[in-house]
C-alpha cells in the first residue's frame, strides 16, 4: 500500500508539471491528499468486485492495478493509454482489472454502479460494486435515486463517499443541508459509517467492515473524511479556503501518517521505505518515457469504436450517412 500511495502522489506531481508544459490537455483533477481513501478501500476488494469512480480517478485506477505507463499514456492522449487516448484524465478504465471508469458527469456513475450490481445479483455472483464519489455528488438527484434503488432491490453496492469538504469551491456546509453525508443514507434506511479518510489503516479496516456488510446484508454507505491538498483542478484559484487551512491538513498527510505507522513497527526500516520511494520515482519516469514515446492514435481511429456493430451493408451503393461517418 505504501508503494501505491507514493506512486499516486509522484505520478500526479509529474502530471501537474506535464500539464503546465502543455503536454496534458483538458482538465486534470489531482487526488493528492486523498490517496489513503482509494488505496485503503481497494486493498480489501476481491477480484470479482467491480470498482467505479468519478473524474478524480488516477489514484483509484492505479490502486486497481492499472500500470503507471497506461495511466500516463492516457493523460498524454496516446494510443497506448487505458482508453486509447480517447478518454483522457477523467476517463481511465480497464475492464480486465474490473475498473469501470472514470466518469465525469457528477453523480451519473452512481446509477451505473447500481446497474452493474443488478447484473451481478441477477447472475447469482457474490461480487460487490464499489462506487466512489465526492461529497458534491450527494446533492444531485442521481445519488438519491441510486441509493433508494439499491435499497429496494437489495443491490450489492458499497457506496464510498470521499468527503473532501468541498464540491469544487463550495464547502459542504454551504452546499448540503446536512454536513455529515452519512446522514443522507439514514433517509433510505441504509446502514452507514463515517470515518477517518487520512489514515490508510483505518480506511482499510472500515472498508473491510463495510464490504462484509454489503456481502451479507446489502448496500452500505461509507463516508470517509479527507482533503485534497491541490485545487479542484489545475485551473483553481482557491479563493474559497485559506492557506492556513490547507497547511493544517497537510500536517495530516496520509503518506506521512502511514510512513510513521510503518516506521514505528519492528519489521520495516526507514531505508527500506526510501528504497521504495526510489523505485516509485523510477516507475514514474519510466511511465513518462513510455507515454512520450508512444504513438498518437492513428487518424483512422477517429471513427473506430463508436459502435460495436458495422452498419448493414447495402450492396452496390453507399449511403450518405456512411460517407459522413467515414466508417470502414
Amino acid at each position, binding site marked *: 500500500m505504501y508503494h501505491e500511495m507514493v506512486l499516486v502522489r509522484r505520478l500526479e506531481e509529474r502530471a501537474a508539471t506535464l500539464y503546465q508544459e502543455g503536454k496534458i490537455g483538458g482538465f486534470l483533477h489531482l487526488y493528492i491528499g486523498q490517496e489513503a481513501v482509494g488505496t485503503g478501500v481497494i486493498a480489501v476488494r476481491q477480484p470479482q468486485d467491480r470498482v467505479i469512480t468519478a473524474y478524480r480517478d488516477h489514484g483509484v485506477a492505479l490502486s486497481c492495478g492499472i500500470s503507471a505507463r497506461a495511466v500516463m499514456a492516457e493523460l498524454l492522449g496516446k494510443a497506448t493509454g487505458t482508453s486509447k487516448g480517447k478518454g483522457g484524465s477523467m*476517463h481511465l478504465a480497464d*475492464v480486465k482489472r474490473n475498473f469501470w471508469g472514470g466518469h465525469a458527469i457528477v453523480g451519473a456513475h452512481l*446509477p451505473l454502479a447500481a446497474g452493474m450490481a*443488478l447484473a451481478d445479483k441477477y447472475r447469482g455472483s457474490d461480487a460487490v460494486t464499489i462506487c466512489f464519489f465526492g461529497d458534491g455528488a450527494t446533492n444531485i438527484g442521481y445519488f438519491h435515486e441510486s441509493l*433508494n434503488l439499491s435499497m429496494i432491490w437489495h443491490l450489492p453496492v458499497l457506496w464510498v463517499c470521499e468527503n473532501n469538504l468541498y464540491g469544487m469551491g463550495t464547502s459542504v456546509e454551504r452546499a448540503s443541508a446536512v454536513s455529515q453525508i452519512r446522514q443522507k443514507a439514514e433517509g433510505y434506511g441504509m446502514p452507514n459509517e463515517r470515518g477517518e479518510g487520512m489514515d490508510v489503516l483505518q480506511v482499510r479496516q472500515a472498508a473491510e467492515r463495510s464490504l462484509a456488510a454489503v456481502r451479507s446484508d446489502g448496500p452500505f454507505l461509507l463516508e470517509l473524511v479527507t482533503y485534497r491538498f491541490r485545487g479542484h483542478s489545475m485551473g483553481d484559484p482557491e479563493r474559497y479556503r485559506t492557506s492556513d487551512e490547507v497547511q493544517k491538513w497537510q500536517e495530516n498527510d496520509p503518506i506521512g501518517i502511514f510512513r510513521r505507522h510503518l516506521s514505528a513497527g519492528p519489521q520495516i526500516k526507514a531505508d527500506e521505505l526510501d528504497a521504495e520511494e526510489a523505485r516509485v520515482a523510477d516507475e514514474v519516469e519510466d511511465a513518462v518515457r513510455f507515454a512520450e514515446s508512444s504513438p498518437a492514435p492513428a487518424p483512422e481511429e477517429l471513427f473506430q469504436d463508436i459502435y*460495436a456493430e458495422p452498419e448493414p451493408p447495402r450492396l452496390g451503393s453507399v449511403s450518405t*450517412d456512411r460517407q459522413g461517418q467515414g466508417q470502414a
Partner: protein
Amino acid sequence: MPILTMREAISQALWEEMERDERVIILGEEVGVWGGTYAVTKGFYDHFGPERVLDTPIAEGVIVGAANGAAMAGLHPVAELMTINFAFLAMDQIVNHSAKLRSMFGGQFNMPVVIRAVGGGGRQLGATHSQTPDAIFAHFPGLKVVAPGTPQDAKGLLKTAIRSEDPVLFIEHATLYQAKGEVAEGEVLEPIGVAKIQRPGRDVTIVTYSKMLQVSLQAAEQLARQGIEAEIVDLRSLRPLDMQPALDSFRRTNRAVIVEEGWRSFGVGAEVSARLYEEAFDYADAPIQRVAQKEVPLPYNRELEQAALPQVDDILAAVQRVL
C-alpha cells in the same frame, strides 16, 4: 400472414427475445405487476418473474442509468420509459452514457441497452406529454434511434435492437398501438439502418417514418385516385440514417416531400432534404417540401391539437406544390 396490432408485435418481440436469451431483462415504471401502462408487457411478470421484469420507482435517471450499468456488465436490458417526454429526465444517461461509454473508453465494453420510449401527439395529453422529439436523439453519434411505422417493422426491429451490442432508443408511437398489419410467421428480424420503400410510385417521393408513415399511406391512396402515384420511403431508423432508397427514388421522381410529426425547425425534414440537395441537387424539379408539426407546444383541446399535427391534407397540399 397473420395480422397483428403494433402492441402485439412489440410484445411478441420482447417475449421471444426473453425466451431466447436469459441476459434480457425488462425494467421500468409499471412494467411488472401492472403489465405496462400501454399493456405491452402484460403477462410478463407472471411468466418471467420479478427477477427479469423489474418495476422501478418513478426515477428515469436511474432507470436508464441502471440499464446502462447492467449493459456494461453484459446483460441486455430493455428499459421502458412510459413516454419519451420523460426521457428528458434521463437525457444525461442517454446522450452522455448510453451513446458515449463505448467510444470514450476505447471500445472496452459494449452498451447493449434498449430504451423503449412512447412518443407522439394526438391523445390530448397536453404539451409536456405529447412531444415527438426524435430528431434531438438522432443528433448524437453512438446512439441508434429506431422508430417503426408498421407491426412487421416493430417486431423485427425490436428483436434486432435487443440482440444488438449497441444502444438503441426504440420509439413507439402512442397512437399506433392499435394499428394492424401483416407480420411474417416465424423468426422476424429487420436490419437497423436500412430504409424501406413501403409503397412504390413514379410521380413523387414521400420520405417519412413512424406514425407519419400511416398518414402518408392514406395521402397516397387519395393521390392515387387523382392518378398521382407517390412512392413512400420509410426511414425506419433516424440513426443510422439510410438515405439510399430516398435518393434513388428522388432521382426517379425528381420531387420530394418529407413528412414528420415533430417540429419542422432543425428536424428530420431539414436533415433529409439537405442530404437530398447535397447528393442530388440536379435532379430536383421543384423545391423539396416539408410537412411537420406547427411550431407551438401542443394544446389540450382536440381541434387545436389536430390543427397543430400534420394531417393528410397537409401532405396533399405539399405534393401539389412539388408537382
